[in-house]
């Protein structure tokens, strides 16, 4: 029932969909929290719906297991994304492995969806060097920590693809807080001016640590920032994976056709703390988060698929078994990674280590030996 990543990679690009031009304040939504379909014509087929559902379940499972592992000392500090799966999965699912992915620390769900192997993802959040050594067959970079700095990189990678004559695109993620940084604005302007095939995902989850979006900016619709740079901006229900997927597919196809970048604002919510070590009660109340649990993206699609008969309870239970087994196998693989040695601190600084680095490596090794 699931489409594999490789079948996607080789699939012929679909016929060009016309880019819809919604009114700037409209929020694209295909499936309401109450389970109604707003625009049947744009709904992905049931197979795609099930595929997206499974990817969301898989992403959620990682998030949930990461918490448990953190509490038992088997995972490092982890920024959870539970509740934001539609925003991450629906967007990253629109890429192939020929496309670039620039994720932030928040976007483990997007990276897993794109194809970052689970063992390596676990290694990253355990702060093992294996987590930084990105697979050769993917174009994904380690999660970005310095806010917004990855945005111009995506423009450059996209431009390089265009100069080489490929149809590949670059996708970069950012938060509502991140969209205050200068790098975000420079990147949007560059991408527009140079017609770079970029898809910019702005996940508006309501918070930048303790700062609510309303204190971050006077703008109430972040997708409209695109207008200032002459590029299309789309606002989408970030808890409706069918909508995030369709909107992102359209933006990706637009970029592949050489029609330039798009900014997509996914309107979602950080129901979880900033990281597993954060205590949100310092800065927000139950009222702030009220209503968001009911908008849970996984539950929304699950109820819809079951009601439509696109998924049975038995199939759902099978999905659970599969993703649990996949994770536990990956965990065992991650557990088996060898511990790094201190000398690795000075490795990978240059192709050819400087004389100073050689000396420093020798010092570290001598210290280890003694």
């Amino acid at each position: 029932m699931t489409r594999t990543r490789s079948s996607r990679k080789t699939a012929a690009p679909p016929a060009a969909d016309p880019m819809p031009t919604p009114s700037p304040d409209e929020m694209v939504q295909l499936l309401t929290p109450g389970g109604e379909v707003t625009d049947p014509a744009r709904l992905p087929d049931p197979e795609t719906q099930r595929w997206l559902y499974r990817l969301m379940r898989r992403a959620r499972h990682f998030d949930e297991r990461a918490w448990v592992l953190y509490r038992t000392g088997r995972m490092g500090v982890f920024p959870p994304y539970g509740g934001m799966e539609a925003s991450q999965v629906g967007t990253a699912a629109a890429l192939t492995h020929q496309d670039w992915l620039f994720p932030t620390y928040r976007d483990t769900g997007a990276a897993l969806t794109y194809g970052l192997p689970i063992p390596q993802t676990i290694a990253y959040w355990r702060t093992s060097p294996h987590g930084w050594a990105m697979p050769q067959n993917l174009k994904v970079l380690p999660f970005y920590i310095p806010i917004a700095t990855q945005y111009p990189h995506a423009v450059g990678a996209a431009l390089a693809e265009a100069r080489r004559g490929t149809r590949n695109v670059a996708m970069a993620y950012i938060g509502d807080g991140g969209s205050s940084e200068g790098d975000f604005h420079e990147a949007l302007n560059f991408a527009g001016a140079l017609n770079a095939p970029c898809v910019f995902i702005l996940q508006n989850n309501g918070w930048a640590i303790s700062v609510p979006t309303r204190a971050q900016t006077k703008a109430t619709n972040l997708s409209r920032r695109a207008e200032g740079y002459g590029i299309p901006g789309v606002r989408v229900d970030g808890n409706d994976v069918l909508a995030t997927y369709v909107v992102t597919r359209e933006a990706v196809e637009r970029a592949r056709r050489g029609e330039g970048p798009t900014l997509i604002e996914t309107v979602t919510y950080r129901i979880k703390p900033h990281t597993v070590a954060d205590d949100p009660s310092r800065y927000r109340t139950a009222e702030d988060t009220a209503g968001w649990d009911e908008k849970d993206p996984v539950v929304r699609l699950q109820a819809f698929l079951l009601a439509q008969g696109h998924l049975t309870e038995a199939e759902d239970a099978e999905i659970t078994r599969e993703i649990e087994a996949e994770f536990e196998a990956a965990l065992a693989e991650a557990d088996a990674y060898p511990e790094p040695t201190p000398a690795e601190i000075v490795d990978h600084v240059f192709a050819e280590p400087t004389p100073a680095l050689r000396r420093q490596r020798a010092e570290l090794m001598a210290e280890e030996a003694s």
Partner: protein
Amino acid sequence: MTATVTALRTMTMVAAINDALALALERDPDVHIFGEDVGIMGGVFRATDGLQARFGTERVFDTPLAEAGIVGMGIGMGLAGLKPVAEIQFAGFLYPALDQVLSHLGRYRHRTRSRYHLPMVVRAPYGGGVHTPEQHADSPEAILAHTPGVKVVIPSTPRDAKGLLLAAIEDPDPVFFFEAIKLYRSVKEEVPEGHYTIPLGQARLVTEGDDVTVICYGGMVEVAQKAADAARAHGIGVEVIDLRTLVPLDTGTILASVQKTGRVIVVTEAPRTGGFHSEISATVAEEAIDFLRAPIVRVTGFDAPYPPFTSIEDSYRPNPVRVAKAIRKVMAY
């Protein structure tokens, strides 16, 4: 130390910093505190805890997430007569603001021939040792020390942190104030209540000794101290100097010690090439070569980014064993 103080209170360094900020807000209506998450949250390390509740959202406020904006806006506030005290969430996130720092912060007095000056303080947690995530443990003090017109202060004790921060806020020129993350809560000390300042540019003799001078600051002072204690057990007298400020640099204290001991070790946790340790070494070589009985030894971080790899990160930072080894080396020369 200039002071009008009586009672003492035992505090952590972060509490002492909070105390200094509260006093500054209380004493001078021009002082304004701003940055990311400094308001209701009280900063990620709680350095501004309770200040917004006490002094209001105009004196203590959250900004949008943009460091160039934070420092750039602070420059404008300073030009117009306020005393901006900005917080950068981690020293490694100062970099988006480097344009404002390098292009403007240290130049305003010079390029307006003192018509304008910037009484601005930029605080930032720095350094490693507590398993922070990637890019949260940088030690960029040399970049700032290399920037003309900018003072650089790095305290190593709660008492110093409070007095130096008050002096920095009262200083007419821009001051970077780096706070060792490792020391925020790990050391407690009796700190005078009320207002006092410790003048910028005066180093502190941590321990006295006749054989070796160890020069350090911030998070490395406790490391040097431990090595000094160990050496003393072997009959070697180590003089540990805590610089407290890199700019202005107290060369008098350094040279007096070097003239006595003739052996110098400089300890920092910053990358080795081009670090402030090298500036200190050069100063000693220039001013006191005749007194040296051994080559100057630098004990530093490595020419690699501070590693985000928890299980090996402790090997990046200098530790008492490495300092002790340097002490043996200069003694054996």
